[in-house]
Each structure stands twice: as structure tokens, then as C-alpha cells.
């Protein structure tokens, strides 16, 4: 009997497996090429002399590599200033907003209070409201508050937290065993103390995921700055980049150099935090 269980399972499908894997590789390699070609084309264009771009057939690796495009874009345009502006409008709501969302999520996950479900439903309802409905009235509100052409509309509302983050973190907090909390309660720690000293340190991966998504959303945001900012010196990176179209009319070498520079921070972030991206997306997908 024992020998029976040790006996290797006959691999009937071995040839079929090879066939399947070959097809899979073929499909993936073709796909990866389709994905990569535009990016490589962007990189290649950004390193060319302006005239060379219009030569046929195109050179994939430019004969003379021109780094000057990058130098020109950085010194001539406000790309660097835009980058700093982006950090200024993205980091405060990401950090403060995450804290506000997390502490609310903790209350919803672990504390009992009258009206809890009603408040939670109200928050969930905000997730259902499409952004387009808010576009016009938000603008009117910010105009009334005198916030137009300032960074305030981009910073302040985000500091109050986001319904999606509350929901995500609430799910996460529910998975943390409550023994630690009970022990802390007996030791006389206040709810705030429990949250800061026990829950937050246990939730670093979930918080990191939300922080990354928050930062990415702010960094890549175009619509908000487009609606609220008028003065070029206040422009965020994405707005500055969008003006390249008009300012560098058909100078594709410079437009592509600027685009490459704008992509670098997010790509670096992605490589360092890849697992958080994947986890974050699959977790939001699973709730559906």
C-alpha cells in the first residue's frame, strides 16, 4: 500500500504541456514586444538630433546619442519646478489623508458605537458617486472659498481621508487578531494609544499599499490641476508636460525627453514596491 502512494503519477500530458508552454511563451513574447516597442521608441526619439527624427527608415539606436535634449528640457522648461509642485500637492494629502482614513477604518473595524452602520454606509455611498458629478459643484465651492488658482483644492480635501482607503483598511484591520488589543486595554491604553502603538505597526504593508496608490494618483493627476490652476508657476508636473505639445510644436525629441523624465519616478517606485501594487489591485478586485 505504501509503495502505491510513492509511485510517481504517470505524466500523460507531458507532450501536451510542452506544446501549451510553447504557445504561452510565443503569445507572451509577442505581447511583451507590443508593450515595449512604444516605450523603446520614446527612449530612442528622446536621444536623437531633431532632424534625424524625420529620416526614413528610422534608426532604432541613434548614430549619435544626444543627451542635450534632456539638458534642454530641464533647463528651458519648468519641468523640475512642476515636479516639486507635484510633491508639494501630493505628499500632504497622501500622508495626512492616510492617517485620517486609517483611524476611521480602525473605528469601523473594531469599535462599537451608535450609528456605526449608517456612517459606514454614508461613506460607501461616496465611493459610488462618480467624479464627474462633483466636477462642476466642487469648482463652484472652491471659487466661493477663494481657492481657485491655489494648491488648496488639490491638498485640503484629500487630507480628510478617502472612502476607498477606509474600506480597504477596515477589511485589513478585521483580519488582525484582537488578543493584542485586549491585552493593551487591560494595561490601560486609550483607544488612540492602541491604534498608534499596536494597529499601525501591524499594518505597515496595507498602509504602504494605500500610500503608494495615493501618491501615484496624485502624481499622475491631470484633471484636478487643469481645472483649478491658472498660473504657470503653480503648474504640477503633468500640466507642465501637457504644455510641451504647444511649446515644442512637433519637436518630438524634446517632448519625448520630457515624457521619459516624467515617467522615471513612477517606474522607480514600481520596481521598489512591485508586490504592493499587485496586492493592492487584487485586494480591491476581490471585494467586488
Amino acid at each position, binding site marked *: 500500500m505504501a509503495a502505491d502512494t510513492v509511485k510517481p503519477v504517470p505524466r500523460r*500530458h507531458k507532450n501536451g504541456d510542452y506544446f*501549451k*508552454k510553447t504557445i*504561452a511563451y510565443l*503569445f507572451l513574447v509577442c*505581447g511583451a514586444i507590443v*508593450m515595449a516597442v*512604444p*516605450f523603446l*521608441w*520614446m527612449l530612442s*526619439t528622446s536621444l536623437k538630433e531633431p532632424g534625424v527624427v*524625420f529620416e526614413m527608415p*528610422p534608426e532604432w539606436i541613434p548614430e549619435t546619442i544626444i543627451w542635450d535634449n534632456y539638458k534642454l528640457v530641464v533647463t528651458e522648461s519648468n519641468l523640475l519646478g512642476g515636479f516639486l509642485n507635484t510633491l508639494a500637492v501630493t505628499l500632504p494629502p497622501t500622508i495626512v489623508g492616510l492617517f*485620517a*482614513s486609517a*483611524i*476611521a477604518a*480602525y*473605528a469601523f473595524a473594531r469599535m462599537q458605537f451608535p450609528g456605526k452602520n449608517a*456612517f459606514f454606509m*454614508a*461613506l460607501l455611498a461616496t465611493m459610488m*458617486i*462618480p467624479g*464627474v*458629478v*462633483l*466636477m*462642476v*459643484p466642487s*469648482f*463652484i*465651492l472652491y471659487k466661493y472659498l477663494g481657492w481657485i488658482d491655489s494648491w488648496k483644492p488639490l491638498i485640503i*480635501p484629500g487630507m*480628510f*481621508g*478617502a*472612502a476607498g482607503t477606509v474600506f480597504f483598511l477596515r477589511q485589513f484591520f478585521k483580519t488582525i487578531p484582537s488578543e493584542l488589543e485586549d491585552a493593551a486595554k487591560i494595561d490601560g491604553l486609550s*483607544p488612540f494609544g492602541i*491604534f498608534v502603538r499596536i494597529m499601525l505597526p501591524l499594518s505597515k504593508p496595507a498602509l504602504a499599499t494605500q500610500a503608494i496608490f495615493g501618491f501615484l494618483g496624485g502624481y499622475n493627476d*491631470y*484633471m484636478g490641476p487643469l481645472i483649478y490652476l491658472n498660473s504657470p508657476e503653480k503648474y504640477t*508636473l503633468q500640466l507642465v*508636460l*501637457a504644455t510641451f*505639445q504647444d511649446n515644442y510644436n512637433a519637436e518630438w525629441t524634446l517632448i*519625448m525627453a*520630457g*515624457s*521619459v523624465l516624467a515617467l522615471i519616478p*513612477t*517606474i522607480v517606485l*514600481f520596481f521598489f514596491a*512591485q508586490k504592493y501594487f499587485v496586492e493592492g*489591485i*487584487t485586494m480591491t*478586485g*476581490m471585494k*467586488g
Partner: protein
Amino acid sequence: MAHSHSTNIAAARAGRRFKKDYFWAYLFISAPIIGFMIFGFIPICYSVYISFTKFDGFSSPELNGLDNYRLLFEDPLMRKTTANTFYAALGIPIGMAISLGIAIALNQKIAGIHFFRTAFFLPAISSVVALTLLWKWVFNSDFGILNQLLGYVGITGPAWLNEEAWAMPAMIIQGVWGGLGFNMVLYLAALQGVPSTLYEAAEIDGAGVMQKFRFITIPGISPTTFFIVVTSIIGALQDFVRFRIMTGGGPNFSTMTVVYYLFENAFRYMNMGFASAMAWVLGIVIIAA
């Protein structure tokens, strides 16, 4: 009596402790709730009112009844941009099919899964502005890489973004390319969640590849499919930035989406009342989806 007295005291004590806990709880949830009141609830209510007025954003709004909503159904551009939005949504099933294919291929215990996943996912984290500028250059009729590659196989490519017939297909191509990674990650997670015992049982029963796909894979991943369909429709109904940068809505409004038209009405023509009515109709469609 003594017994019930002591339980009363205990209950009162517990009540006080609970009240203190309530205080903390309300304090903890206050920021998102207050934020929602100020930046969500009040603007939303105001927007309902604005949608029944003529309002340029500066002078005070004048009530005009259902005029804005009536205009929605009479405005030919409204009809055109709605049709455009549905046309653009053709990219959803195409993109879903391809990303499912990629996810299945990646699920064959393949070497280099990280490399492939990164390659497909890169657009999902990239700036829409940068990607759109990039594709504008790719679609360039004379010097863009797409027409050059088509030239190698003997096809004279169209002037993509400058031709009314080809501008929207170009936007669909770019949209599918950009959206693959996100859906692929979701599908891959879903595929990994389908119990392998089901496949083994089916194999014993002599099921073929297609049968397994049809009767195990598709039902197994259907919640994810549903999620992707819903989020993609919501995304497509609000798709705007890449159209604004790539084509400016042209040529001849052939790539102007509903949200783009809404934006133009609100912030260019200053028809904030009409734009709010549009937003509500669109919003209700989205919520219904």
C-alpha cells in the same frame, strides 16, 4: 435585590465606559465624515440645484426649469459624444479577451513571470499625459512608428489622428494597450483562485482543453469578469484626459467623449447649469451600472 442592584451599577459603569468609547469612535471617524459633508454632500446637493438653472459660474444662477435636461436630448453634439463614448467602449471586450489570454499564458508556471508581468503592467502606473504624448508620436502619419511598421508589410497606414474614420480606432488601440496590465493582474489572481482539483477531476473524466476552459475556468473567474466589466464601463464613461491631449476631440468631434463635452461646457463655454444636468444624467447611468 442586592444582586440586581450590583448588576445595575455594573451596567452603569459599563455605560460610562461605553460613552467614553463612543467619544473616541466618533472622534476617529470625524475626519472622513466631515470631509464628505463639506466636499461631497454639500456640492452634490448644490449641483442638483444648479442643473435646473442657467449659470455661468459668476453671476447668480437663474432657475430655468427643465430647460437643461430638454436641451440634452435635443443637442446634436450630445448625441454625437454619447455615440462616441459607446464606440470607444468597444475596446473593453477586446482588452478583456487579450488580458485573459495573457493571464492564462502567465498561469502556465512560466519562467520569467515577473518580467512579463512588469512589461504588461508598466502603462498602468504611467502618467496618462506622458503615454498619450508618446502615442501621439506613434500615430504620427508620416514619421510615426506604427505606419513605418505597417509599411514594412506593405500597408500604407492611414493618417490615424487626422482622419475622422481612424481617430477613434486609434484611441481604442491605445486604450487597450494601456489597460491590459491592470486587468491581467486581476485575472491572474482569479485564475490562481480556481481550485486545481476541479481541473484534475475533469481530466479524469476525459475533458479536453476547451471543455475545461468553458466549464471550469469561465465560471470560476466570473466574479472577476463582472468586476472588470463594471469598473471598465465606469472608466470608459469618464474617459477624458487622453482624448483631450491626443486629439482635442477632433477631427470634427469624432473623438469627443461625453465627459470631454461636459468639461468644455463647464469650463470653456461656462454653461455650468447645462454641464451639471449632463453630469447628473451621466452619473445616474454610472450608478445604475
